[in-house]
């Protein structure tokens, strides 16, 4: 995926931001098993959400969800590992397999962290606890997941999984950035990963958070979210190293900011104060004013609480600029991939910057008038995008905001 707009031999402009470059990208989503497939379907206005396949999630079959094409297996952990490896393989395609003397790191964002419903175990357990095979109780082996990835990709630097709920994928990118800036690693696989699982479907259903039909983010008709598979991988490295080596830069990671609402175990702070704090911190680390942002990938789960708090936060940070700022809600097309969402949607921002196109938001209803005028494209729109923001807000009030810039910005 070569950048199409970068002038040849352009020297980097002096800048005072994080100085991190994205030089590889891989995606596996319900829209496609690669970044080009996902992007093409997204621009075409497609959605990967559909009624659950018969028998797949037992009595949660009423829930719409987005499943990625992948190995047919009841072992959701094995499936997740395979799909994440696919995303990593795609991201590394431009880097080759030789690692040389560089220290590679692995930063994984996930909320489930390889937990799974373990239906076969519970079937045995309910029949006779004394004879249940505990090897089928699939849990708490996030370390094995990291281990398998570290072996596959010869990781010798830090390899850590961060689980900040639905902000995890973005937090993993922030963690990778810190490793690069502090010299703990030279190149990092920053990944997001979470498969759809009966446990999370049932859990969010118990919370009343699942939508009854298609997602309608930012609209007065919004009634909840839909879960989906999500697997992303970004290769991050110091920008100066990428330029010195002549590696194509897909986009630049200019800023990262995080915060905690410190408010409630599941509900966001309705004032949006925590989310606004994360966005401001991201802008500060990017050394950018709010009106320098041309495009924002919202978290926009389409729940009543999240969207209201998010818009409130956006108003706080962007003020009048919000009336002109192009916004995108990916989840009607891609679903909510929980811990992976922050990584998946950051990858979409990279693609938007690379191709200078704003993807459409798939929805039937317009914006809630209570939110004021918001710019939300309903079709793919060519645009000049120099700086983009990607937001992810999670359970427990974990907030993460990333600022990504065009490679020559």
């Amino acid at each position, binding site marked *: 995926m070569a950048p199409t707009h970068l002038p040849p031999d352009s020297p980097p402009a002096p800048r005072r931001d994080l100085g991190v470059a994205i030089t590889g990208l891989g995606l596996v989503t319900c829209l496609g098993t690669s970044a080009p497939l996902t992007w093409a379907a997204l621009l075409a206005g497609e959605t990967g959400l559909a009624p659950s396949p018969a028998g797949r999630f037992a*009595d949660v079959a009423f829930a719409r969800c987005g499943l990625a094409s992948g190995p047919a297996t009841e072992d959701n952990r094995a499936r997740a590992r395979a799909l994440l490896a696919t995303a990593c393989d795609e991201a590394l395609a431009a880097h080759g397999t030789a690692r040389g003397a560089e220290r590679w790191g692995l930063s994984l964002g996930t909320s489930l962290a390889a937990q799974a*419903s373990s239906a076969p175990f*519970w*079937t045995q357990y309910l029949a006779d*606890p004394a004879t249940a095979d*505990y090897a089928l109780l699939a849990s708490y082996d996030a370390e094995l997941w990291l281990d398998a990835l570290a072996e596959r*990709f010869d990781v010798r630097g830090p390899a850590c999984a961060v689980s*900040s709920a639905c902000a995890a994928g973005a937090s993993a990118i922030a963690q990778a950035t810190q490793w690069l800036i502090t010299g703990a690693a030279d190149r990092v696989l920053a990944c997001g990963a979470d498969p759809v699982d009966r446990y999370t479907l049932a859990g969010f259903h118990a919370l009343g958070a699942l939508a009854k039909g298609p997602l309608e983010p930012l609209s007065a008709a919004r009634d909840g979210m839909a879960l989906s598979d999500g697997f992303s991988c970004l290769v991050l490295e110091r920008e100066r190293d990428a330029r010195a080596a002549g590696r194509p830069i897909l986009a630049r990671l200019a800023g990262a900011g995080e915060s*905690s609402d410190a408010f409630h175990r599941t509900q966001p702070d309705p004032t949006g104060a925590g989310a606004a704090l994360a966005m401001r911190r991201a802008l500060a680390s990017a050394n950018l004013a709010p009106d320098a942002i041309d495009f924002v990938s919202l978290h926009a789960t389409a729940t009543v609480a999240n969207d209201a708090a998010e818009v409130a936060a956006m108003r706080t940070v962007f003020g009048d600029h919000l009336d002109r700022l192009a916004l995108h809600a990916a989840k009607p097309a891609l679903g909510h991939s929980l811990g992976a969402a922050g990584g998946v949607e950051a990858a979409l921002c990279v693609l938007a910057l690379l191709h200078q196109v704003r993807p459409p938001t798939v929805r039937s209803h317009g914006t809630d008038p209570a939110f004021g005028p918001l710019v939300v494209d309903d079709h793919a729109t060519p645009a000049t995008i120099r700086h983009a923001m990607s937001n992810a807000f999670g359970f427990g*009030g974990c907030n993460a905001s990333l600022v990504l810039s065009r490679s020559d910005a």
Partner: protein
Amino acid sequence: MTPGAPLAITGVGAVSPVGVGRSALEAGLGHEAPPEARPRPPSGVPQPGCVVAFVPEFDAESHADPRTLRKVSALSRLATVAAAECLAGWDAPPARRTATGVFLGTALGSSGDHLAALELLARGGTSAMSALLFAESVFNAAASHVAKVHALRGANWTTVGGEATGLDAVVAAVRQLRQGAVDAALAGGADHYEPRVHASLAAQHIAGADGCGAIGEGAALFLLEPLDRARREGRPVLARLLGIGQARRGRRPVGPEPAVEAMALALADADSDALAVDLVVTGGGATPAGALEDAALGQAAGVANGHARVTPLERWTGAGLAGTAALRLAVAVHALAVGRYPPPSPGTPAPPGRPRRALVLVATATGAACAVLVGTED
């Protein structure tokens, strides 16, 4: 905070198999190892061969505000009690709390709540699912709860994986502080034992087979902040955080190389000579991880030549989980703060002298390693 400024540890909170509180931890090390404890799983749960070092029953409400302990998981309770001790006397203004992050490592998370919710789901279907259990079962519930209790609005991370996560979280906090992303940090590790998870890991031959040593539960949290500010404000400097190091090897077989590298990185980060280290705290014990740590120490100058005293903590607190990894750092920090070495083994007197520079090491059989170097204020 000025990026790159020296860091201090100004608070420690500990809940361990030898007692609740930092002082209880030191007192506990002065005794023989706690009686070997076998897990008492619910009827029908297979009992793995290794022992478990449980946190003894204690009145959590005498250690933390009772309102902060209601309707939360066992893991959140451990973390909340540790945080209460750690932050006692920390009279930070709102602006400081807004810029303080929470970084918690855990291997098992709120596994008890997770399995309870799964059992509800299995028995009664979706309609039986508990929203509260589900919300408490997510890995970041404890860290988010602590942030809410103390109004800490910086980054909130939960590092999940194996035992090393108890120190990985501290390392993550150090990096955030050095970058200026947070102004102060509450960091450490916590784990609450869950017999069915243990049975699962044993059945998969991941952990818990015979000869696996003792698995320990517990929690330790540390308050990290700029050294200069701590001194200006008269905060107690229990130790200085001098250096950090992490390494991983995915190739098999796993040898001591990641641990050797992690120690070297921590020393280089601190610009410290290995011979300046006079105390090393590891897990130790007759486990594959303990053997890796011992092998790594055998290659480390200062330790290999007998200059540094080594305290393997597994005999008192168990090992294998994030909480026990963090407890190693608690032992090291406390030793520096009070000017006394911990004993090298149960029933053995502590050596004379005063430690000044302590290295804490965690190595895992999956190829992860983390090292933290701490020193006295002077």
